C-alpha cells in the first residue's frame, strides 16, 4: 500500500514539476527562442508557440471552430479518440492473435523458429512502418480505409507479443518438460498445462508494449492515410491552425496521450484476474 502511495505521489510530483517547468520557461525564456550558432535550440516562449497552460485547459471547453456554434473541443477530441480506439483495438486483437500463433508454431517447430525469427526481429529493427502511406493505398479498394490503419497497428503490435510469448513458452525448465513427458502428455497438453501458464508472466509486459505500439501505429496510419475521424488527423488538422489558434493543437496532443494511457490501463486491468498468483518477470519493460 505504501508502495502504491509513493508511486502516485511520485507521478503527481512529476506532473506538477512538468507544469512548473512549462510556465517557468515561459516566464524566463526569450519570446524568440534562443539561438546558438544560428540554430534555435530553445523554443520560442511567446504565447503563440507555448500557450499558457490555463488557456490550453480553457480551450477544451470552447467550440471547435472559432466563432461557430459547433461542438466544443473536448467533444471533438473524445469522438476522435473513440474512433481511433476502435481502430487500435481491432489492430491490437489481430496483432496479438497473429503474434500468439506465430509464437506457438515457432516453439513447436524449431526449424520454423530458425527460419522466421530473424525476419520477425528484422521487421521491427527496420522502419517497415514507413510503408504506412503505401499500405494505406489498399484502403478504399480492397477494404474500407480504416482497416489499413488497423493493419498498421496490428503490424506494430504483433512483434512484442510474438517475441515475448516465445520466450515465455521456452521458459519452463527441462525438469518441467521431463515431468510432462513422464506423464505421457502430448505436445498440446504440455502446451496448455505447462508452457502457456509459464508464459503468462512474459505475455503481459509484451501485451502492454503491444498496446502502446498499436496506438502509435494507428496514429501514424491515420496521418499517412488521411483517414478522417481519428485523433491522428485531428493533431495534424489542429497543427495547421496553430498560428491562429495555438492552444488547439495541444488539446489534441493531450487527447492522444490520454488514448495511450487508456489502452495501457485497459491491458493492465486484464492482467489483474489472471496474474494474481504469478510473479512479475522483469523482461523488457520498455
Amino acid at each position, binding site marked *: 500500500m505504501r508502495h502504491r502511495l*509513493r*508511486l502516485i505521489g*511520485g*507521478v503527481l510530483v*512529476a506532473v506538477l514539476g512538468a507544469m512548473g517547468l512549462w510556465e517557468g520557461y515561459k516566464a524566463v525564456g526569450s519570446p524568440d*527562442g534562443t539561438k546558438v550558432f544560428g*540554430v*534555435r535550440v530553445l*523554443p*520560442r516562449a511567446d504565447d503563440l*508557440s507555448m500557450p499558457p497552460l490555463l488557456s490550453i485547459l480553457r480551450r477544451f471547453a470552447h467550440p471547435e471552430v472559432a466563432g461557430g456554434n459547433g461542438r466544443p473541443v473536448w467533444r471533438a477530441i473524445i469522438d476522435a479518440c473513440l474512433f481511433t480506439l476502435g481502430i487500435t483495438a481491432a489492430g491490437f486483437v489481430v496483432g496479438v492473435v497473429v503474434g500468439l500463433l506465430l509464437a506457438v508454431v515457432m516453439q513447436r517447430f524449431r*526449424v520454423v523458429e*530458425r*527460419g*522466421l*525469427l*530473424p*525476419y520477425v526481429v528484422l521487421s*521491427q*529493427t*527496420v*522502419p*517497415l*512502418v*514507413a*510503408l*504506412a*502511406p*503505401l499500405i494505406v*493505398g*489498399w484502403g478504399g*479498394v*480492397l477494404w474500407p480505409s480504416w482497416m489499413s490503419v488497423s493493419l498498421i497497428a496490428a503490424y506494430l503490435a504483433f512483434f512484442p507479443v510474438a517475441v515475448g510469448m516465445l520466450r515465455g513458452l521456452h521458459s519452463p525448465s527441462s525438469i518441467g518438460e521431463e515431468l510432462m513427458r513422464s506423464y505421457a502428455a502430448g505436445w498440446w497438453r504440455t502446451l496448455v498445462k505447462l508452457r502457456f501458464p509459464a508464459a503468462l508472466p512474459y505475455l503481459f509486459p509484451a501485451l*502492454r508494449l503491444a*498496446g*502502446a505500439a498499436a*496506438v*502509435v501505429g494507428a*496514429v*501514424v496510419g491515420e*496521418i*499517412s492515410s488521411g483517414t478522417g475521424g481519428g485523433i*491522428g488527423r485531428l*493533431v*495534424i488538422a489542429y*497543427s495547421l491552425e*496553430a498560428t491562429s489558434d*495555438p492552444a488547439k*493543437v*495541444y488539446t489534441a*496532443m493531450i487527447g*492522444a496521450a490520454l488514448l*495511450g*494511457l487508456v*489502452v*495501457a490501463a485497459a491491458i493492465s486491468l486484464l492482467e489483474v484476474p489472471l496474474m494474481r498468483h504469478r510473479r512479475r518477470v*522483469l523482461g*523488457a*519493460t*520498455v
Partner: protein
Amino acid sequence: MKWAKLILPPLIVGVGGILGWELLVKVGRIAPYVLPAPSAIWSELVEQRSNILDAALASGLNALVGLVAGAILGVLAAMLASRWSLLSEVSIPIAAVLNALPIIALAPILNNMFESTSSLPRRLVTAIIVFFPVFVNTLRGLREVNPTHRELMESYAASGWTFARLVRLPGALPFVFTGLRQASALAVIAAVVAEYFGGLQNGLGSRITQAASFTAYPRAWAFVVGACVLGLVFYLSTLLLERLATPWRTRT
C-alpha cells in the same frame, strides 16, 4: 557445418519469399499500388540510388543525433536515479507510463515551437523516443549488483565512488547496450516517420509520401527499402559497438 543449420532456414525463407512475391504479382496481375513486383522495386533502386542515398544520409543524421542525445541523457538520468532508491522506484513506472503515450504525436507541436525549416524537431522527437529504453535498461543494470561483489568491495573498504566506478558502471554496460540496441532501431523509425507529420522534408519519409502521391509506387517502395537498409546499418553498428566495448561477453 553448424552455422549452416542456422543460416539455411532464414535464407530459404528469404529467397523463397522474394520469389513467391514476384510470382504472385506477375501471375495475379496485381496492380502496383497494391504490391509492386520485387523486380520493379529493384530497378527503381538502381535508378534512384543517388536520391536514396541523399535522403538516407539526411534521415540517418537525424537518427544519429537523436540516438546519441537520447542515449547520453538516458544514461545520465539512470545514474542520477540510481543514487536515490526512492527516485529510481518512482521513475520506472513514470517511464513506463510516458512510454505508453504516442510520443511521435509531439512532432507537430515541436514543429511549431521551433522553425519548420529546422531539423531540431525530428531530432528531438527521436531523442525522446530513444531516451526511454536506454534509461530503463541502464537503471536496471546499475541497480543489479552481485552481492558477492558488494561484500568484496566492502572488505576492501572501498569508497562509494570507487565502488561505482569499478563495479556498477562496468557491470551495467551490457544493460546499456541492450537498451541501445532497441533504441537504435527506434531512432531510425522515429527519424523517418516524424517526417509524415510535417516540418522539414528532406529525408526518406518525405520521399516516400512524395512518390506515393505521384503514384510512383515502385519508387516509394524503393525508398522504403533504403530506410530498411538504414535501420539495419544502425542495428549492426550497435552490435559491433557492443562487441568492442564488452569483449568479455560470451557468444550465446
